[in-house]
């Protein structure tokens, strides 16, 4: 890798280059090692830094009064033309290592300690991403720690996801999701029996003390590690349940917002394109942190040439294009749009290689056509994918126009959007059912909520069709209900767009409130009220397979901010926004929300509405 910059110096100056990479500094024709002060100038000075690294990516830090590394430097990989170097606002000190993400730490002590069989169960006030630290006053035994997002999981030694032997020196366990920690003595695998003194070998030798004693001998603390992204929103209202839902959604969302937007803090901890798309909507009203959007979107897309779909899922590639639009609408980030637009183009070209004879996208053989954990008719081209694809064309045209792309190119995308929309209506709209069907290839005329929700959100349906969709699909109990908070978000968004605010508020109370009733302290990956309580943590055929802290379930924040407080960001760069509150459903409400760099406050006492901007 080469980093280059030319300076026109008025006088002599000095600088030093720091890097853990292998390489050198080239000033005009002379080479210098890293870490040496270099004097140069006055006059034109050409600097190149050559750096290579096998263990991690090469990075450099140039320190000097005038000569400093920043985004005025160009980076070159010897393959493509030079481009503006990458940087991050968090890495400004010579002592930092860009390959190490720096977490902040917060110590949490258990709020409950309970003897359970041969061990001790420690409970924390809420779920954390923490390093557990176990202090054992006795040094002659080995302990094992079983973690759980639920009490049931921590107590199930066989099925819990995370169990650790604390480090012998530090007593620490690896960082993981934890609400409950069950600690027991690790025993050799031979027959044992319980006695009043504790566990005994069959020959009568005492193996370990009873759990009551263990409780006195060990201390546990959780070192919660998190990325500090300040929350800019504040929300409180007269409806106690809605208040609690906002607060739990906020906690859920913050736990899932680290270096990147991840799906959940247990199990995957992966960056998923569809999950991230929804996180962008919540972020703009809660933290309004543009950088986590950028980090996530760059990570998801990777480098060209594109050879597989993002996360191997067709719809997740399409959401990536739509994500750039959501990000730009929230922050007016034209520099980022310019940076990634070439990758939007290559992504859509990659998709255009996967069309059927009608121009519908079908992916390649073996591609994952996801949309939702639901019973969709996926034979042939799936309707919901076409709607996302059409919206991608509209986005290409819109964002292309914003960064001054050729009008012919943008017009071409718009034409493709119009054609796609016409074809969707011709092939998938079923006049008899007054709804879109999943597949026309199968002949089954299967109706699900999914495509019909997208038809409202992306304006594939006209006004008359939208009214029919609400009646025939969204308000029709014969059409199976959505079971993931993921698609529940889109459904609630569509209903809000159609003006059903009272209904949506009630459904937020029921659905998200339903999780709270079942003991949730963070919102779940999936919630089906009809599933009995003893099976509520099952998913993917795994007893504790369900993630209980999942970013895609934090959407009440977006819904409340966007439709009830009614804040819509119009032009974030110039601080323009629209406020169209619907607070008639609340006796009182106080709220602060970010809009670009501004903080908008709104106050409702049931009679009078006041609002303004905070500096």
């Amino acid at each position, binding site marked *: 890798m080469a980093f280059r910059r030319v300076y026109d110096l008025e006088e002599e100056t000095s600088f030093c280059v720091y890097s853990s990479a292998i390489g050198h500094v080239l000033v005009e024709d002379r080479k210098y090692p890293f870490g040496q002060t270099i004097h140069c100038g006055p006059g034109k000075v050409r600097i190149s830094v050559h750096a290579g690294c096998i263990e991690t*990516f090469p990075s450099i830090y140039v320190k000097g009064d005038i000569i400093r590394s920043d985004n005025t430097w160009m980076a070159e990989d010897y393959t493509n033309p030079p481009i503006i170097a990458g*940087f991050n606002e968090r*890495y400004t000190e010579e002592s930092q290592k860009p390959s190490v993400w720096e977490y902040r730490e917060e110590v949490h002590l258990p709020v409950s300690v309970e003897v359970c069989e041969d061990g001790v169960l420690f409970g924390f006030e809420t779920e954390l991403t923490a390093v557990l630290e176990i202090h054992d006053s006795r040094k002659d035994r080995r302990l094992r720690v079983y973690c759980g997002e639920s009490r049931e999981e921590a107590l199930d030694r066989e099925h819990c996801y995370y169990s650790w032997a604390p480090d012998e020196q530090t007593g620490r366990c690896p960082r993981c999701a934890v609400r409950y920690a069950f600690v027991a003595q690790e025993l050799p695998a031979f027959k044992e029996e319980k006695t009043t003194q504790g566990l005994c070998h069959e020959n009568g030798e005492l193996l370990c003390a009873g759990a009551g004693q263990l409780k006195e001998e060990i201390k546990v603390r959780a070192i919660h590690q998190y990325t500090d992204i300040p929350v800019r929103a504040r929300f409180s209202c007269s409806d106690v349940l809605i208040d609690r839902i906002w607060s739990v959604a906020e906690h859920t969302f913050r736990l899932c917002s680290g270096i990147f937007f991840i799906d959940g803090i247990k199990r*995957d*901890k992966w960056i998923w394109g569809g999950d991230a798309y929804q996180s962008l909507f919540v972020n703009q009203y809660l933290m309004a942190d543009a950088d986590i959007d950028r980090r996530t979107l760059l990570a998801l897309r990777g480098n060209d040439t594109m050879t597989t779909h993002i996360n191997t899922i067709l719809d997740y590639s399409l959401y990536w294009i739509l994500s750039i639009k959501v990000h730009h609408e929230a922050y007016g980030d034209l520099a980022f749009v310019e940076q990634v637009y070439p990758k939007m183009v290559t992504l859509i070209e990659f998709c255009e290689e996967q069309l059927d004879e009608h121009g519908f996208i079908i992916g390649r053989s073996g591609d994952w056509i996801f949309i939702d954990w639901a019973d969709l008719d996926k034979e042939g081209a799936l309707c919901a994918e076409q709607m996302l694809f059409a919206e991608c064309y509209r986005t290409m045209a819109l964002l292309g126009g914003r960064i001054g792309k050729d009008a012919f190119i943008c017009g071409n995308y718009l034409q493709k959007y119009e054609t796609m929309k016409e074809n969707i209506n011709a092939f998938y709209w079923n006049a008899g059912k007054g709804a879109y069907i999943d597949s026309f290839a199968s002949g089954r005329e299967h109706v699900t909520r999914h495509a019909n929700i997208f038809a409202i959100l992306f304006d594939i349906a006209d006004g008359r069709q939208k009214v029919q969709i609400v009646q025939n699909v969204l308000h029709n109990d014969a059409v199976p209900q959505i079971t993931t908070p993921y698609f529940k978000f889109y459904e609630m968004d569509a209903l809000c767009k159609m003006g059903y605010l009272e209904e949506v508020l009630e459904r937020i109370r029921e659905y998200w409130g339903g999780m709270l009733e079942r003991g949730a302290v963070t919102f779940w990956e999936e919630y089906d009220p009809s599933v009995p309580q003893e099976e509520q943590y099952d998913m993917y055929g795994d007893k504790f397979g369900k993630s209980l802290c999942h970013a895609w379930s934090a959407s009440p924040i977006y819904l409340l901010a966007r439709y009830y407080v009614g804040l819509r960001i119009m032009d974030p760069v110039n601080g323009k926004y629209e406020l169209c509150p619907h607070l008639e459903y609340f006796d009182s409400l106080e709220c602060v929300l970010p809009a670009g760099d501004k903080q908008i406050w709104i106050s409702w006492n049931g009679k009078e509405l006041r609002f303004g901007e905070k500096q």
Partner: protein
Amino acid sequence: MSRSTSYWIWYPGDFELYHAMQQNFSRVERGYGWPAFWKS
């Protein structure tokens, strides 16, 4: 970006791809690692 500050710089995208790899390799399930390599 402040003009009076030095920043660590790299080839654009390298930082995100490296940390994404770290993130996507951090999954552990009942003692077994479960790495995801989304081709980048």
